[in-house]
């Protein structure tokens, strides 16, 4: 991807509505970085963070920074009144807006309770145990298009793979999985949608909640060997059993959270393979490099461009003093390219020593619960695709030649990704 200046006057452009920035975020991030690691945008009461150390300090501070705006950004329905206690206003806002009560937006005690349900559920060790299934599903999906010599990474591979893996892992019964397959969020109705409007109730993944309620009641009565049963058996720190609704909320969120992100990870990995001649053969010859390849793609492509925090108390990070009521826009993808942290940050380098220190899964108390799963899916996908086909190329008829590619990007200020990615290959 060219990093050249796309000729946008960033001083006069609103990042929350501009498709051009959603499609090409890095020149914008470098423009911000030029102004400093923490920069007030001058609109919507937003302060942008591109510095690695600064962002990390904010991720780790859940006392002064609330997570209530992680999914809404500055479109949070809260007009801060400095004459009333902050916590009261945050809790009022949460109580009036159901979609702000997922684990991702919860704070302190409530968040701790949801996290207790997730504790130890998705670990690298457990993912090893599920690997055989992941290989099997990857091959079944590849079988569907291998004869055609071409595929759309998003719909032909990414979505079914991510969906079936999480469905199996959580324990959605096989007879319900057909319905799961093909369920995808409307790209114009996802959190982070440009312009701020999105309808969570339109998201089919989150509408699975009712079904999950049934599963949870069933697992409490008839335990099985699956994630749902383990979620159902988790206890809070004081030893009590969470109510079924709390388990349903966490399970449903897990189910939805890991799909669009993981799909974009697959697409980004395949773009890198296509645009770096020789890389395919190198990974085939040295499969032990694949985990670092996955992480370097996460670092440089940044599926989650941005997340948010809401300033609860006046607090200083680096040289900057945040004021209550400000929205902090943490540019994860910019932190991942901070030259103070990553040498030659815009270069794709599978051998990068500190690649695992990227923050694509966030950090601190809200760090991604699905990281070990996403990494395992990424590795298995690449292993199986490389074993079954070679010469993965972006379809130039559809997307144009390297250096002048045309993709339709997600119209989103939080997520980075493409709506479609047509590729060709040769069957092995």
């Amino acid at each position, binding site marked *: 991807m060219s990093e050249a200046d796309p000729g946008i006057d960033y001083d006069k452009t609103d990042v929350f509505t501009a498709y051009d920035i959603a499609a090409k975020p890095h020149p914008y991030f470098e423009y911000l970085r030029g102004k400093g690691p923490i920069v007030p945008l001058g609109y919507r009461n937003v302060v942008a963070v591109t510095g690695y150390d600064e962002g990390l300090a904010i991720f780790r501070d859940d006392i002064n920074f609330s997570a209530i705006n992680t999914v809404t950004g500055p479109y949070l329905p809260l007009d801060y009144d400095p004459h009333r206690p902050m916590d009261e206003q945050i809790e009022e806002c949460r109580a009036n807006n159901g979609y702000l009560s997922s684990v991702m937006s919860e704070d302190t005690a409530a968040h701790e309770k949801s*996290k207790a349900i997730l504790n130890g559920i998705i*670990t*690298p060790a457990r993912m090893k145990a599920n690997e055989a299934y992941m290989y099997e599903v990857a091959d079944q999906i590849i079988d569907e298009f291998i004869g055609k010599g071409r595929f759309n990474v998003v719909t032909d591979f990414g979505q079914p793979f991510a969906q079936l893996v999480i469905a199996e892992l959580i324990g959605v019964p096989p007879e319900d999985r057909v319905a799961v397959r093909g369920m995808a969020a409307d790209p114009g109705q996802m959190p982070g949608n440009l312009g701020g409007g999105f309808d969570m109730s339109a998201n089919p993944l989150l509408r699975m909640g009712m079904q999950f309620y049934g599963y949870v009641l069933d697992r409490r009565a008839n335990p099985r060997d699956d994630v749902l049963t383990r979620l159902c058996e988790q206890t809070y*720190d004081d030893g009590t059993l969470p109510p079924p609704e709390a388990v349903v909320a966490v399970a449903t969120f897990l189910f939805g959270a890991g799909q669009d992100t993981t799909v974009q990870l697959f697409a980004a990995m395949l773009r890198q393979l296509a645009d770096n001649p020789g890389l395919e053969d190198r990974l085939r010859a040295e499969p032990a490099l694949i985990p670092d390849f996955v992480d370097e793609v996460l670092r440089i492509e940044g599926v989650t461009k941005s997340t948010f925090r809401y300033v609860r108390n006046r607090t200083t990070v680096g040289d900057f003093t945040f004021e209550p009521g400000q929205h902090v826009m943490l540019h994860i993808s910019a932190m991942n390219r901070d030259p103070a942290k990553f040498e030659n940050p815009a270069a794709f380098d599978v051998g990068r020593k500190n690649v695992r220190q990227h923050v694509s899964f966030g950090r*601190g*108390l809200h*760090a991604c619960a699905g990281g070990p799963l996403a990494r395992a899916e990424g590795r298995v996908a690449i292993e199986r695709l490389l074993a079954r086909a070679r010469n993965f190329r972006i379809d130039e008829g559809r997307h144009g030649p390297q250096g002048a590619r045309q993709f339709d990007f997600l119209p989103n200020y939080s997520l980075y990704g493409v709506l479609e990615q047509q590729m060709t290959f040769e069957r092995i």
Partner: protein
Amino acid sequence: MVKITFREHDGSETIVDARPGLSLMKNAVAANVPGILAECGGNCACGTCRIYFDPEWRALMGTPRESEVEMLDYWHEEGDGARLSCQVLAVEAMEGMVLRLPESQS
């Protein structure tokens, strides 16, 4: 508050005024202990908040649950002197305890 020392692999130390009832990991992160990476934020899912303790603190450190044992195995921690600090709550009786941190977290 309880004073707990976190000793990095290179020998440097941070003395943390820990709040009882809060996990050792959260206390360490709040005090900016460099060697507690805690990448997963306390999910028992990454194993980057490992701590080593001496036998005299054994009784206070409790026993890990199955998922934590898996995580410790994953990092090849043998013997019973290691835990994930996100899974251990600070208690008053830990006053003066010294915890050592692994090289992979330095």
